[in-house]
């Protein structure tokens, strides 16, 4: 599923686009250590963490689409980091729970 398709499903907007960003599974998590321990490659990461560190974690686990919930603003350094690392960022007003339901056709991410 592409970032644009994901944005449409979660009623959000693509804040940072990235060529070829695709997701085949989903991981929901706000603790970056937990995400690093459990999220697998090519997942879409659903989180509230609007922070540059989140981009670093995405590159570590091999996630190219990030969904930021509750319309949390993307700080400039985070947007720059995402563009540089090829991580697409989608911002949605929905909660993590609601985003999970919107994406339920995708399987859970396995590590």
């Amino acid at each position, binding site marked *: 599923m592409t970032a644009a398709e994901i944005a449409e499903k979660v009623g959000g907007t693509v804040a940072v686009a990235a060529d070829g960003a695709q997701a085949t599974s*989903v*991981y*929901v*998590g*706000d*603790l970056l250590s*937990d995400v690093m*321990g*459990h999220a697998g490659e090519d997942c879409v990461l*659903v989180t*509230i*963490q609007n922070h540059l560190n989140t981009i670093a974690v995405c590159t570590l686990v091999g996630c190219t689409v990030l969904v930021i919930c*509750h319309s949390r603003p993307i700080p400039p350094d985070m947007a720059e980091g995402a563009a540089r690392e090829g991580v697409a960022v989608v911002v949605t007003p929905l*909660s*993590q*729970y609601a985003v*999970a*339901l919107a994406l*339920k056709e995708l399987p*859970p*991410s396995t590590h």
Partner: protein
Amino acid sequence: MTIADVVKVLNGKLMAGDGTSPRVVGAVVANDLMSDVLLTDADDVLLLTSLASDQAIRTAHIVGAVGVVIHNAKPLSETMIKVANDLGIPLVSSPLSKYDACVKMHDAFLAEARG
């Protein structure tokens, strides 16, 4: 759906509380950031979180949650279980990821609505 039903749906294990609470889950909050959980206005919340710490229980108590589910079968400390028992917050450990749990909870709500 009561906490006993949640245990079944999420293939979980009850770690604190006796599972006989008659309270019914009114809303699901899936979040590891406690400040964000405190923002919710919903009543009778079930908190799904990967934060295996006392703070998850204390936050649940503040918002009057029906219970707390910890994901990925994370080990729970004795103090966390004690805090849950002291504050009367049912605590469930589930092997499912938070995403999987969200989907399963939703399916269970739909099944319940259908009767």
